[in-house]
């Protein structure tokens, strides 16, 4: 009995998780009557709307990552170095996007940054794109900040900074050539999570009316039968790829110092 229940729990879990994956894969192959084929994939991949929205979301994801790194790395570094008392508060703030639903945040954006406001970001396509990037950066903040902060914990920030300063480095040099290379693995794992989140995000893009991949998937789901399943398989593969990349890069992470104190 005692040996049995763990296996039972695992088996039930496996069945629950494998069935939907199996279901969507099987369904995506069924477009041609009677035989399995990749027709649904061919159709999706050839759709110009797929290519446009996918490219749009990839560019958005990269911009979000770039912005997120520029925002989070200096902040987390500075807080560790100079304002350690502030750390619990900053950490709390970075967790807030998990508390406030994305739909509420974007609702606020629409009302606050409309064409008649002091910062009319939604007035132009470019402005809305920038607003969307800021929204995505907010959504990924809990993951990005945690990843970078954990990375900073494994290096001796103060000593590295003083060493760099005594060699004449300024703040930009320290951040770009000393701190960033040391926490690169952490930054990359934050970046891959961000990529996975942004690529499939629906709510913000749909409500800001941007041609992103998430709303495209939803639209296709409402109108087609087999293509959505193919899209789901593709989306799952991308998520899996991002997580696998995190695993791979974290093998190169510096180990925590042997003597912590």
């Amino acid at each position: 009995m005692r040996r049995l229940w763990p296996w039972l729990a695992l088996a039930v879990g496996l069945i629950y998780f494998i069935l939907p994956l199996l279901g969507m894969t099987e369904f995506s192959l069924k477009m041609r009557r009677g035989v399995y084929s990749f027709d649904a994939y061919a159709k999706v991949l050839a759709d110009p709307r797929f290519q446009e929205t996918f490219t749009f979301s990839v560019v958005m994801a990269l911009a979000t990552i770039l912005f997120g790194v520029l925002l989070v790395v200096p902040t987390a570094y500075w807080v560790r170095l100079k304002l350690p008392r502030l750390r619990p508060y900053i950490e709390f703030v970075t967790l807030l996007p998990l508390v406030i639903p994305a739909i509420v945040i974007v609702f606020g954006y629409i009302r606050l940054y409309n064409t008649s406001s002091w910062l009319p970001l939604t007035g132009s396509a470019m402005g809305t794109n920038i607003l969307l990037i800021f929204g995505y950066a907010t959504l990924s903040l809990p993951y990005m900040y945690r990843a970078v902060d954990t990375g900073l914990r494994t290096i001796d920030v103060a000593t590295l900074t003083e060493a760099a300063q005594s060699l004449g480095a300024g703040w930009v040099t320290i951040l770009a050539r000393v701190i960033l290379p040391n926490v690169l693995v952490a930054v990359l794992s934050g970046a891959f999570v961000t990529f996975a989140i942004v690529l499939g995000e629906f709510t913000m893009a749909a409500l800001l009316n941007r041609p992103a991949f998430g709303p495209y998937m939803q639209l296709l789901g409402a109108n087609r039968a087999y293509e959505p399943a193919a899209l789901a398989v593709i989306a799952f593969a991308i998520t899996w790829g991002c997580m696998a990349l995190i695993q791979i890069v974290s093998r190169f992470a510096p180990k925590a110092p042997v003597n912590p104190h």
Partner: protein
Amino acid sequence: MTTQTHPVPRSIASRLPLNWLGVAPFVIFITLFLFLPTMHIVVGAFRNPAGEFTLANIQGLNTPSIISAYWISIKISLASALLGCLIGFGVAAAVTLGGLPRWIRSPLLTFSGVASNFAGVPLAFAFLATLGPIGLVTVFLRTEIGIDLRALGFNLLSFWGLTITYLFFQIPLMILIITPALDGLKREWREAASILGASGFQYWRMVALPILFPSLLGTLALLFANSFGAVATAIALTGSSLNIVPILLFAQIRGDVLGDPHLGYALAFGMIVVTGIANTIYIWLRARSERWLK
């Protein structure tokens, strides 16, 4: 090689408020794109179109359709959070303590990372292809075993349908959060308990569960908030046929179905209140549980 010398000693520099300038970009960003938008909603919920204070918007929530939307949202979130906690705990306990081989652990955690991020529109597609009217499991049960899910009253676009779908990201999230807590249970505690004559059940009831209780309840609160705010999965799964709060708010923002933007503020404010309560419990209990799990 010339070294640049700093005329100002660091001890003086660190006393200047200049230090705070380093976090200024972050503070400005958070203020503009997290605090102000949220505050705008909260304040708007208590204002009429003329900008005067009013409670009419909040009272406007008191219609049968909105009340039932909140009620079913809370029920789905609570059910998926409870089941997610229970099943996730079972799986995590099986892997950390139940004597399953070590090699299962790493793939399980990796898969949990993937599945907890596999939410939104594609997740809805996966479940439609599995449990929908012509989904894999539905068809298999009907043609091979003779069980007609539909005749039994099962519908994916319902309370249970949504709950089962949400479990796909709830269970992995639970596994990811609770595994470190289970690792924190020290072997010595179990040995001490059994030396004192405790059975396995007594050890769990009187030692392990009381220690884990705050993190269990806390994770429950986090999972609750997680599914309460989920918009994309619900919309992709049900279109707008199911009356739950996120869908209602989405429709309100899109086309002002309710006809009154300030009622939208009140709806959103209600969501903040519900997830806020859940997460206040989470943060408070996590702070308590971390005292034990050093």
